[in-house]
């Protein structure tokens, strides 16, 4: 078990290392000279050289890479070329929107998916099962940005209940801020919920067939208690795995949804930074997103281990 943990942890480190290397290589060969982009077109060659030195662009590639990693590890992400402010403060500013949005979306999709998934499983092959799974099937097929457009069309254009985009800001009060996050969170949550509901249903169905649930029922537990006490708990493993996997989609999804609703979040910052060739911002956000996904998947694995002792011996499957 400890060996497995250590091995898994090293794998995590190597994954992050490879990720950072790829990001660095991909973004450092970007066409275009950031210095001349900042200074504009009329810039003199000597001012360009000075700026390149200031930004460390004249160092050798390995040196730049190690400086970057050392910076990331100490929380110093460098300065944004275009905004001329520390990248860390830019990212923090945006996280104050993106984190609550991701949290809202995940909570919403979990709260929707698990009860409906269990309900469908409990009524296997009955009307409500077919109905719920039909909706889930549809939900998986709906692109989240189109769903977002439909929400805007209905709730903003027709009913005028929500504004069609933008972020009121936390200083306008919790209510106002949350109100501007409702439609984005719903559009992010729906496709996720649809997948999660399907996974929950099949996971519960799978465990119901296993021996310990049968034993529980034989011991006299009612069908429903057996379902909730044993089946659902054990079904959590695959559900949590999918939740972990969904996180990376959610983070990517925020790029597109933040664009639909023009929310000043991390995804939009990344998108804008690409447009402005602000490489320092791009590489730091991408490594941050990649690291989040890798670490969360690691935690999911740990969770796995804690939840299902049967898995502890078998490190490979």
């Amino acid at each position: 078990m400890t060996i497995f943990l250590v091995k898994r942890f090293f794998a995590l480190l190597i994954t992050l290392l490879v990720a950072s290397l790829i990001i660095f290589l991909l973004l450092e060969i970007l066409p275009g000279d950031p210095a001349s982009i900042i200074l504009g077109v009329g810039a003199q060659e000597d001012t360009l050289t000075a700026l390149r030195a200031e930004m460390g662009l004249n160092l050798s590639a390995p040196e730049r890479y190690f400086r970057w990693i050392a910076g990331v590890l100490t929380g110093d992400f460098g300065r944004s070329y275009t905004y001329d402010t520390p990248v860390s403060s830019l990212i923090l500013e945006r996280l104050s929107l993106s984190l609550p949005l991701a949290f809202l979306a995940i909570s919403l999709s979990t709260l929707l998916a698990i009860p409906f998934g269990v309900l469908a499983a409990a009524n296997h092959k009955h009307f409500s099962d077919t109905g719920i799974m039909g909706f889930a099937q549809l939900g998986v097929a709906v692109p989240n940005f189109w769903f977002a457009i439909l929400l805007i069309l209905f709730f903003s254009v027709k009913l005028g209940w929500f504004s069609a985009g933008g972020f009121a800001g936390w200083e306008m009060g919790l209510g106002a801020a949350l109100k501007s996050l409702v439609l984005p969170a719903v559009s992010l949550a729906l496709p996720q919920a649809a997948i999660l509901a399907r996974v929950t249903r099949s996971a519960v169905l799978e465990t119901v067939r296993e021996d310990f649930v049968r034993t529980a029922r034989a011991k006299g537990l009612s069908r429903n208690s057996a379902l909730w006490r044993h089946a659902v708990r054990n079904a959590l493993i695959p559900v949590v795995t999918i939740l972990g996997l969904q996180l990376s989609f959610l983070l990517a999804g925020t790029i597109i949804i933040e664009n639909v609703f023009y929310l000043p979040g991390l995804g939009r910052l990344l998108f804008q930074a690409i447009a402005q060739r602000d490489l320092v911002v791009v590489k730091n956000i991408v490594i941050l997103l990649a690291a989040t996904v890798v670490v969360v998947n690691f935690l999911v694995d740990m969770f796995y281990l804690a939840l299902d002792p049967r898995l502890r011996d078998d490190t490979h499957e």
Partner: protein
Amino acid sequence: MKSTIRRYVKLLLISGSTLIFSGAAFAGESHLTMGTVLEPPHLDPTAGAAAAIDEVVYANVFEGLTRINQNAEVLPALAKSWDISADGLTYTFHLQNGVIFHDGATFDSSDVVFSLERAAAENSTNAQKALFAPIASVKAQGPSTVVVALKTPKGNFLFNMGWGDAVIVDPLSAGSNKSKPIGTGPFTFKRWVRGDRIELGQNANYWGVKPALKSATFKIIPDPAAAVAALMAGDVDAFANFPAPEMAAQFQSDSRFIVKVGSTEGETILSTNNLQKPFDDLRVRQAIAHALNSQEIIDGAMFGFGTPIGTHFAPHHAAYVDLTGTYPHDPQKARQLLADAGFPGGFKATLKLPPPSYARRGGEIIAAQLSKVGIKLEIIPVEWAQWLDQIFKNKDFDLTIVSHTEPMDIGIYTRPTYYFQYRNPGFNAVIKSLNVTSNPKRRYALMGAAQAILAKDAVNGFLFQLAKLGIWNKNVSGLWENSPVQANDLTGVSWKN
């Protein structure tokens, strides 16, 4: 009984609604939220070409010796008056007294000397160094007088000193203006939430007439769909340059809004790389001019907003000559010219398009128009940073679409290394004599001659003059309807009650 209740309810409703309305009026009385499409890269107008910088800080945070109003007139600003010597070579500026910068530093002649010398210096990062090129020397005569000597007479020197690039900065804060601008204007910089908004507050120590607004927010909304939503929802009070012309009719029919169609200095052109084969052949450029249908582009890309142009000159200018008939829309003629130039079957080329919808939509229409005469264009969308790098700097392009928004910028055609690389000694001679001519009648004649040369040479595809589509809350007044310079001057803006 029933009627009493009804009256009571009515009363409640009325008092309730007055409460709501007075609340709104109170909130709106002294604050304005202005939507803007482009986020400035930084906030120092003396160190960047981006119009987005001026759109936030010009006249609001920073002031120059002179200022330009929405009718393109030159007004006194930090210089309350000036004398010009008879030979037009010496300008003596008399400065305002009692002006202090937002950080408390005193403004005097040394700041003017510093700012102008800094802008004109060899290593200057000013984006419009050409404005300062005629300056021979800047000298202070006491704290409130500055004497500027010019190398050659410059007819529009006072206008040029009113540009955002010529604002006066303090030596102490000049280095940090990019992120924390310190000027002398009626608004102070408060906060910049990157990617979202820039907040301005009141300058309690302002030297001049205090504006009606006490604070303002510039909300950055690059996406046209989002701009529509923000106006509809009241998240922004005004959009001085509204990016979605297709929605204008919708707003016009909505009594909550005022829609103003004004003029800009933006000549929107199909920029052509004049050194690149086959565009170096006049017949090819003429063929393109004949293949283009400006009105169709205006209707399709701008939903009717815009004025066709036949040369690089703003139609609202007094010296404008209508040359739209030089090469009228005539695909047959275009094919003939292409055949004469050795391309009977047409040819392939690229069309690089920056983000604004005039370019992206206009580009699709132009590609369709040119394909009808055999020129097959591959559309390549680029971001502004790439556009500056590839096209403007490295001249790596065949065709592109861009709006040249600087006022009176016909002089760019004399620069041999300018990105479209037009070289015509005859044209340069006309501009040279224009620069040393002060007689207005003679000047107009020369400007007309210059316009005619550009039109005849079909240097670029001259498409249309960009319209300024302003949409704002009907209770807001005093916003600029025209854009002689790119700015959102908020000093005259107020709320009607």
